[in-house]
């Protein structure tokens, strides 16, 4: 629920230091969400194969965050996976890796755990069911690729405005190829309507130098044999037009020339070791505070016969004993059928039980096909000592007083603990399975997680957790048809600080039992904190089944799941519980994959346990959502790319506030509509390549009982123009405007943003310089309300923020040679709020990387 008091003050910045390189503004910023205390601009668009940068900050800088995580899943997927967000002084960021960015899109939300163990999310309400959605469009083809792309398709299909179709084939050198200087030959052949190709229009540029006069050009091909090429990376670009003067898209690609010395080295076919290492230093000065971070990362990989090996070490100055580990170490050795990994590993055995949780220890596998074994053991949480209050006795009253160890002030406390610590937690997981998984696999999962209470840490409620469950997979035709099912049963001892029950205690509770719980301590601690208390009711049972069908242009995904209210796996602690339902999703490819139709329907019941809680004020909530999206990616240059999405979701717990007004503050009944439209257009104008993008997003939430203070409305419009020039320069200009209404319009927030960025390459593209200027202005207003969020009899509208933010970013990346590179980025931010405080922020980042 939203109250007027929780309305936001500051708006997150669009560009931080991490975005100094040229960006497509349409890939960031839709509308800001600050209702929960996390300030974040949702990302709306992305491109397949390119990572997505996610940034967020906490509204109140005084709030201490334990950690912040990004949870994401493919659109239509079942469970979320997460990544830790990297902390800067007042912001957190992470990148969704390129391998995860696939069509049709990604759903995500952000969750922060505060030091007081409370949780805040973005979106602020129901993030699991209403996560943010990113539409992912196909990766760029050779015709659309930026000139700086190091990889270009060897074959390009070009079409001019007059319909002349040409196929170009890069014969030599291959895009991205490394080649000795004395073997360089540049050759591109032409096929198709070559008779309509204007040979006089053909121009060959190598590192922006026009070498057309030295090339041999016929209607079949162009070739050029240079005398010598200097070592390093080189850029080739070919311009062509048809006989009517209409230009085709340029053909551009890069390759590298190796020196004789490097050539002799690479002739040795065995490369036992390869990898890279970097050192990085960042400093951010925010108002009166400065945060400096240093990172070191080194990784290697290699192969010796059948054995492959890789390792990584990441060391950061942010590593502190009072936080969970931030350093990362791993060493992995193995073949395709046997292997082991030491250090930080992220085992994925079963979506319900163990799915990507970090374990510092060992993970091993044996894959024989008919029988397989997976094993993981290690620490999931390190021991962190808590901090108790200092105790003194009031001399006047003789009463014990608690003194804050940080401030020295006397405070009240019911526990005497200022900050709770964490127990060392270890995990043991075993999964034997039968079948290779190509067509069939049956697995049994066993996971045990326990807190170590042997050392006092001032921790709360140490736990012991046991989860068992099978899973089965049937797959056909390279997994184009796939049926999966899994179930899991959990037992949790929620507080093992008192140890296990004695036989006498157990007998008195249940009658004579044939075993002594204390004798099985090392396997599981059984005591009164057991959840569930009555396992036979199956409240800690979870099961899930999914069906995938990928044929005839359809990619259908049907999931059914039921997660008991008391199911808990500490190895997958953020799995949503107490719900049951299904989802159906289909992505339909039409017209040679130029048109995509995305259809989705979800129906869940959450809070099933409310049926048995004998409380009339709580009921399970029905959730259903329908989503329809259409995407059009034409091959023809002169047609725009279009993406239209609509989603309608309803949540209703069936409670009627008209019958019982006392439940008005928490009864759930609302409908949410999201509409988004994106248009992208590649156009040539003044002999330059432009990409023009328009985005419109509308979100409207209305309460079913007309509790207007729960209503939200948001409108965002954004335009951007990206231009690639004849010289190695790319510019992006964008403008966005957003209007946000909360509390039924009693509070509004409007902002306007303008951004211009430029990216320029020098020295045969070894040096890339980037700079940008961004200005944001925003006004927030709210109406005075009473405790029930109703306008006062004589309401007044007042501004709570009126600010202007200006950011200057500049930086560069220098490729010294094929092994060494340097990066330097700087940001200067001026923030001025007429109603609150002003501050300046500066960030500088330096990085050196070595690849071998």
């Amino acid at each position, binding site marked *: 629920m939203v109250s007027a008091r929780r309305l936001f003050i500051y708006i997150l910045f669009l560009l931080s230091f991490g975005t100094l390189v040229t960006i497509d503004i349409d890939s960031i910023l839709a509308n800001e969400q600050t209702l929960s205390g996390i300030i974040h601009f949702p990302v709306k668009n992305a491109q397949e194969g390119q*990572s997505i940068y996610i940034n967020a900050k906490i509204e109140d800088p005084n709030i201490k965050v334990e950690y912040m995580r990004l949870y994401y899943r493919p659109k239509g997927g079942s469970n979320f*996976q997460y*990544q830790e967000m990297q902390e800067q002084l007042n912001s957190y960021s992470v*990148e969704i*890796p*390129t*391998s*995860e960015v696939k069509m049709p899109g990604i759903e995500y939300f952000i969750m922060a755990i505060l030091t007081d163990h409370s949780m805040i999310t973005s979106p602020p309400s129901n993030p699991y069911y209403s996560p943010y959605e990113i539409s992912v469009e196909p990766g760029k083809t050779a015709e659309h690729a930026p000139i700086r792309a190091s*990889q270009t398709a*060897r074959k390009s299909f070009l079409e001019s405005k007059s319909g002349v179709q040409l*196929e170009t*084939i890069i*014969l*030599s050198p*291959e895009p*991205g*190829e*490394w*080649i*000795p200087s004395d*073997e360089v*030959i540049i*050759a591109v*052949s032409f*096929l*198709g*309507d070559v008779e309509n190709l204007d040979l006089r229009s053909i121009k060959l540029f190598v590192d922006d130098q026009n070498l057309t006069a030295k090339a*041999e050009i*016929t209607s*079949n*091909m162009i*070739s*050029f*044999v240079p005398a010598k090429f200097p070592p390093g990376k080189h850029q080739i670009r070919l311009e062509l037009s048809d006989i009517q003067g209409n230009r085709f898209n340029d053909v551009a690609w890069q390759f590298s020339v190796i020196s004789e010395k490097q*050539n002799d080295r*690479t*002739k*040795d*076919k065995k*490369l036992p070791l*390869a990898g890279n290492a970097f050192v990085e230093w960042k400093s951010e000065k925010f108002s009166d505070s400065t945060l400096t971070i240093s990172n070191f990362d080194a*990784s290697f*990989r290699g192969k010796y016969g059948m054995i492959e090996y890789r390792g*990584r070490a990441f060391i950061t100055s942010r590593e502190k004993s009072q936080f969970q580990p931030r350093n990362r170490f*791993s060493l992995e050795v193995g073949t395709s059928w046997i292997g082991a990994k030491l250090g930080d590993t*992220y085992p994925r055995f079963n979506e319900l039980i163990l799915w*990507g949780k970090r374990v510092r220890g060992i993970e091993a596998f044996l894959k024989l096909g008919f029988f397989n074994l997976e094993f993981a053991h290690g620490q999931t949480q390190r021991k962190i000592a808590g901090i108790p209050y200092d105790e003194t006795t009031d001399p006047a009253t003789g009463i014990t007083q608690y003194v804050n160890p940080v401030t020295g002030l006397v405070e009240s406390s019911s526990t005497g603990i200022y900050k709770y610590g964490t127990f060392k937690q270890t995990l043991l997981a075993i999964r034997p399975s039968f079948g290779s998984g190509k067509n069939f696999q049956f697995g049994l999962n066993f996971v045990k997680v326990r807190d170590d209470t042997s050392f006092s840490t001032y921790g709360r409620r140490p736990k012991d957790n046991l989860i068992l469950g099978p899973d089965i997979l049937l797959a056909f035709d390279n997994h184009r048809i796939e049926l999966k099912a899994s179930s899991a049963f959990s037992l949790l001892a929620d507080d093992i600080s008192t140890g296990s029950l004695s036989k006498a205690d157990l007998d008195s509770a249940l009658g004579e039992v044939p075993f002594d719980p204390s004798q099985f301590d090392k396997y599981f601690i059984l005591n009164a904190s057991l959840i569930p208390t009555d396992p036979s009711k199956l409240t800690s049972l979870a099961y899930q089944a999914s069906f995938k069908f990928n044929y005839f242009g359809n990619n259908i995904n049907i999931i059914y799941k039921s997660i008991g209210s008391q199911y808990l796996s500490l190895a997958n602690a953020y799995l949503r519980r107490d719900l049951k339902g299904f989802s159906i999703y289909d992505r339909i490819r039409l017209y040679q994959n130029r048109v995509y139709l995305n259809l989705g329907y979800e129906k869940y019941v959450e809070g099933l346990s409310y049926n048995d809680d004998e409380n009339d004020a709580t009921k399970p909530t029905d959730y259903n959502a329908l989503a329809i999206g259409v995407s059009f990616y034409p091959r023809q240059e002169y047609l725009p790319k279009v993406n239209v999405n609509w989603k309608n979701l309803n949540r209703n717990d069936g409670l009627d506030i008209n019958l019982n007004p006392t439940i008005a503050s928490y009864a759930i009944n609302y409908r949410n509509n999201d509409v988004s439209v994106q248009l992208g257009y590649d156009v040539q104008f003044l002999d330059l390549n432009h990409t023009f993008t328009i985005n419109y997003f509308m979100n409207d939430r209305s309460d079913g009982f007309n509790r207007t203070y729960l209503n939200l409305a948001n409108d965002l419009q954004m335009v951007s123009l990206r231009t690639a020039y004849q010289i190695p320069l790319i510019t992006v200009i964008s403008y966005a405007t957003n209007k946000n209404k909360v509390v039924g319009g009693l509070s509004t927030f409007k902002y306007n943003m303008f951004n211009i960025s430029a990216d320029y390459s020098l020295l045969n593209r070894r040096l890339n310089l980037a700079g940008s200027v961004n200005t944001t202005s925003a006004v927030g207003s709210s109406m005075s309300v009473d405790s029930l969020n109703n306008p006062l009899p004589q309401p007044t509208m007042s501004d709570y923020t009126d600010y202007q933010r200006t950011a200057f970013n500049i930086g560069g990346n220098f490729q010294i040679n094929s092994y060494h590179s340097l990066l330097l980025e700087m940001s200067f931010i001026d923030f001025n709020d007429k109603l609150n405080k002003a501050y300046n922020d500066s960030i500088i980042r330096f990085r050196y990387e070595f690849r071998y």
Partner: protein
Amino acid sequence: MDKINKVKIIVIILIVAFFFNEGISQTPKSEDVAIILKTKGDVKVKKEEEQKWFKGTRGIRLDSGDIVKTYEKSLAAIMFTDDKSLLKVRDNAALAIRGKRLKTTMTKRIVCSMGNFWLKVTQQKSKVLVETPSGIAAVKGTEFYGVVDENGNTMIIVIEGIVQLINKLGEALVEAGQTGIMSKGLPPKVFKTDSSQKMKWADEDKITKELEFEFQDGNGNKKYLKIIYH
């Protein structure tokens, strides 16, 4: 038929024959069928319509009918311009390149009278024919070595794909891991490639090149895909 009509008929026939002949001789020769990417040692090229041999170097374009000859300790790497099929010719070899350009593809013929060669045909839309004195090898999407000796006997060692051997006395399919032999006066034979026959000389001159892609898996672990090729 009187004399004048006979003369008319002869003249008409001559005129038709002239134009027919002109038409044939003016059938445009396909140009830029292939290009020499690399040479080592002594490599010579002769244009079909010329008698003179000239030095073959990288960048020289080959039209249909051009002949490439390699001498002692020499090598030539030739790429076809429609689909990047790659031909390597070893020392003491002689072969002619023939091709006919179509709109988006090319029919290709390699006429080898003698020598060792290696051919890799990629994503072709049409067949490649290799003619030797003892028969024809029809190639489709494949990689193989060919050896033609001074007697015209042909040995084809297939690395990948299928090669169809054809001569007047029969046909045979040679698959990966097999060797096919054609001799004059005998039908083609196929047998499993003996380890002593396996060739790798096409890789000897190669530079180990690599394309490397960096990405991250869902756990944030950096992963690398390296394609090492020659």
